[in-house]
């Protein structure tokens, strides 16, 4: 249908995204308490959810077992939700309209007593035309599809919808009893399969489980593993049914109005709703079709501020050119940035250089660089959009009136400039967007992407074809350790990082490691002095291709930063001695066993000095380059309000 609409409109068709903020899908946990035995078994399930930081909805049967209203109030006060689950759960609550009318007063009485706004029919018995008569804000008695229920069928959608003035929330994951008892499954694989299906398409994963059946250890453990998998998923809106209901009403009461060349949400959902565009196609073909509508080739400005950015921003140059988009590259003369670019044959316009420590100095240098960039771009021809990880670029883009996309994979960096310049932050989905929101960034300026920025760095790189860097003669049995000291000029630098670096080097010296020292600043070689080296370390004094360098060592020890992530991405044992606030990406890499975060000098003994095994690429999102390109060159994106979800829907 959208494909037809796009053809008619002759341009991408806007719509309000299904979920608020930076969320791309919804996960809703609900329970039906069928019998007294279920009511007696609430605590293990509640504790399991509390331990994951989750809350759920509990649908209770008012007249089948004794319910302690004080306990119900305590659950509600704790953030759980209570719904009404029929009256007697005898298979007859919705048997006929006469029965409904007879039982409704007692149902309504329970709803008032518990403050319930939602209804779940026992055994999912339902008559769509009767449900609004029950007087609830929402109903959740209909599966999207379920041929195994006594009332087989389903509403065939995985999104909420209105049934008259009642919101219907479809149950979209198979119920526990159906899955484990009727269909004889043994684990949560089917829940995960469907949840991933819905996650990919931006649907609502609504699960209905029962404490009556969760007493079965097998089902309980499966539920626990399911929660493990999604409790930290930053892309998911983990909401209660009543919250989904309220959002759906705000969304339905809002509309889109043109604003400049884009669209603005008007109504109660403004501030949390996102506008998405559908172009009716998908993938690369879609990108090209959008591009072909441009009267002149689009121009994307890429600003590169430091050596790691050469690695993950430069791949965009060729990729943009492949879809007919021109690029202009600017750079800062910092570290080996310019040398690396020149080595790759890239002619970049260079503005600014090493700034050093001091907030005032940084602000002044950043402002000056922004001014120079703006002046250059006015002269050279205004680009359509900027892609960078650079505050001066964001400021210049704001002055030029063009959209700015900033890649950020460390959430504790200062994002005030991005906020003031109305930049859109592209961040890995493992980062909780709430961290940015707390810094004042609007939710519609946040786009979570699957994977890591290292997916950009290694896009199209044939690791096997690259020879290891020649680090000279390595003493026999010595383990090769690449060591990267902290950046002492970053605004999040703490002196403790340098102390920790020195302690780490001392430990490596004592253990007889062969250290390859990669300083960020030549002065940092002082860290090597006066230590009991068994094997004299070598210091890198010129830029070395990073893959080649990483392949030449057994272990990488870094004070945070890109090198740690690149090593972890390639499966090289990676240790972080970063003493500032740890980012979500590093925590995630540790969680999946690809990095180890060393908190204190006492833990330095946990660095394992052994020869490494073969490389093992992570490839967390091989399509990331293409996905970000689609975001950046989308016409609507250039008018600023867009999320990545459309682009993931292929």
């Amino acid at each position, binding site marked *: 249908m959208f494909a037809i609409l796009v053809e008619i409109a*002759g341009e991408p068709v806007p719509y309000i995204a299904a979920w608020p903020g930076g969320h791309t899908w919804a996960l809703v946990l609900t329970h039906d308490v069928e019998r007294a035995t279920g009511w007696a078994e609430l605590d293990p399930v509640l504790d399991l959810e509390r331990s994951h930081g989750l809350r759920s909805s509990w649908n209770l049967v008012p007249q089948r077992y004794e319910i302690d209203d004080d306990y119900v109030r305590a659950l509600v006060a704790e953030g759980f939700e209570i719904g009404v689950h029929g009256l007697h759960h005898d298979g007859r609550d919705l048997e006929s309209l006469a029965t409904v009318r007879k039982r409704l007063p007692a149902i309504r009485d329970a709803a008032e007593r518990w403050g319930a706004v939602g209804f779940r029919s026992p055994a999912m018995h339902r008559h769509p035309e009767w449900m609004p008569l029950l007087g609830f804000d929402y109903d959740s008695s209909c599966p999207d599809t379920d041929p195994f229920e006594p009332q087989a069928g*389903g509403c065939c959608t995985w999104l909420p919808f209105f049934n008259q003035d009642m919101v219907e929330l479809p149950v979209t994951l198979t119920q526990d009893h159906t899955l484990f008892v009727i269909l004889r499954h043994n684990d949560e694989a089917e829940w995960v399969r469907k949840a991933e299906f819905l996650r990919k398409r931006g649907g609502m994963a609504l699960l209905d489980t029962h404490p009556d059946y969760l007493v079965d250890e097998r089902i309980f453990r499966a539920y626990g593993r399911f929660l493990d998998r999604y409790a930290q998923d930053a892309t998911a809106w983990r909401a209660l049914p009543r919250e989904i209901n309220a959002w759906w009403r705000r969304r339905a009461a809002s509309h889109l109005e043109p604003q400049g060349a884009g669209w603005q949400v008007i109504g109660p959902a403004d501030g949390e709703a996102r506008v998405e565009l559908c172009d009716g196609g998908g993938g690369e073909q879609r990108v090209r079709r959008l591009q072909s509508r441009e009267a002149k080739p689009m121009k994307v400005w890429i600003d590169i501020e430091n050596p790691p950015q050469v690695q993950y921003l430069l791949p965009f140059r060729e990729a943009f050119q492949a879809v007919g988009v021109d690029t202009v590259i600017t750079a800062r003369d910092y570290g080996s940035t310019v040398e690396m670019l020149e080595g790759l044959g890239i002619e970049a316009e260079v503005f600014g250089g090493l700034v050093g420590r001091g907030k005032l100095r940084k602000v002044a240098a950043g402002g000056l660089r922004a001014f120079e960039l703006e002046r250059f771009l006015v002269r050279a021809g205004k680009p359509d959009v900027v892609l960078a990880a650079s505050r001066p670029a964001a400021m210049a883009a704001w002055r030029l009136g063009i959209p700015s996309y900033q890649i950020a994979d460390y959430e504790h960096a200062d994002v005030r400039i991005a906020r003031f310049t109305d930049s859109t932050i592209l961040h890995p989905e493992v980062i909780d967007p709430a961290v940015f929101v707390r810094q004042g960034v609007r939710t519609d300026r946040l786009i979570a992407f699957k994977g890591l920025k290292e997916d950009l760095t290694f896009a199209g790189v044939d690791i096997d074809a690259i020879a290891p860097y020649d680090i000279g003669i390595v003493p026999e049995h010595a383990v090769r350790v690449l060591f990267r000291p902290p950046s002492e000029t970053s605004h999040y630098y703490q002196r403790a990082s340098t102390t920790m670096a020195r302690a780490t080097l001392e430990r490596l010296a004592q253990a007889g490691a062969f250290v390859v020292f990669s300083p960020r600043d030549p002065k940092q070689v002082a860290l090597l002095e006066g230590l009991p080296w068994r094997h004299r370390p070598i210091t890198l004094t010129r830029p070395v291709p990073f893959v080649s360098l990483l392949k030449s060592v057994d272990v990488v020890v870094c004070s945070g930063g890109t090198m740690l992530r690149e090593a972890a991405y390639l499966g090289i044992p990676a240790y972080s001695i970063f003493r500032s606030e740890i980012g979500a990406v590093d925590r995630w890499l540790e969680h999946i066993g690809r990095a180890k975060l060393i908190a204190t000098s006492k833990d330095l003994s946990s660095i394992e000095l052994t020869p490494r095994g073969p490389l093992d690429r992570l490839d967390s999102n091989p399509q990331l380059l293409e996905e970000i390109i689609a975001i950046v060159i989308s016409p609507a994106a250039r008018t600023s309000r867009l999320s990545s979800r459309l682009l993931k829907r292929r």
Partner: protein
Amino acid sequence: MFVSSRRLTFLDYFRTPYQVARPVTGSGIEQLKARAGGAALLWPIAGTASPAVAATVQGADGETGIPIFASVVSDDIAESLLGERSGRWSPARTVVGAHGEPLAAIWHGEDGSVFLPFDPDEVIVNYWSERYTQIARGPHARRFRQELMAFYYRLRPLLPRSLQIWLRRHPSPAGPLRHASTNSSS
């Protein structure tokens, strides 16, 4: 962005901007156009078509298709309706019945317009309301099934648990439910 001859559930649902402007004269056809003009999406007004049926809009490859449950207008009626409009029209996609028999077609106009032989709102609402079960089985079969279910629940306290589970493991005949299931997960 669009102008429609009546409210459209699909656009309301996705909050896609459009205005409603009733046509001055009735033509038996509803339409949605871009505000800038050009091609249009057309469909028959309510009452033009026969009672709702289970059908499938065939895919471009003739194999895969989208199941729909709605009233559809035959090609004869479509030609007659489209004949009142300018430009040439030709059938582009076939709509087949439950047994694969051709029922109607989606028509394309030379200006890029598209004519659906059914009301898109009706398709959506028949899914949401599960009316498709009634359309596929017929109202009598549905009523019989409801009565059977009521009987089952009265009898259930007497049935052994193993029998109850056996009955659940042998669900109702696929037919429209398979249609729905396919649609929902594809």
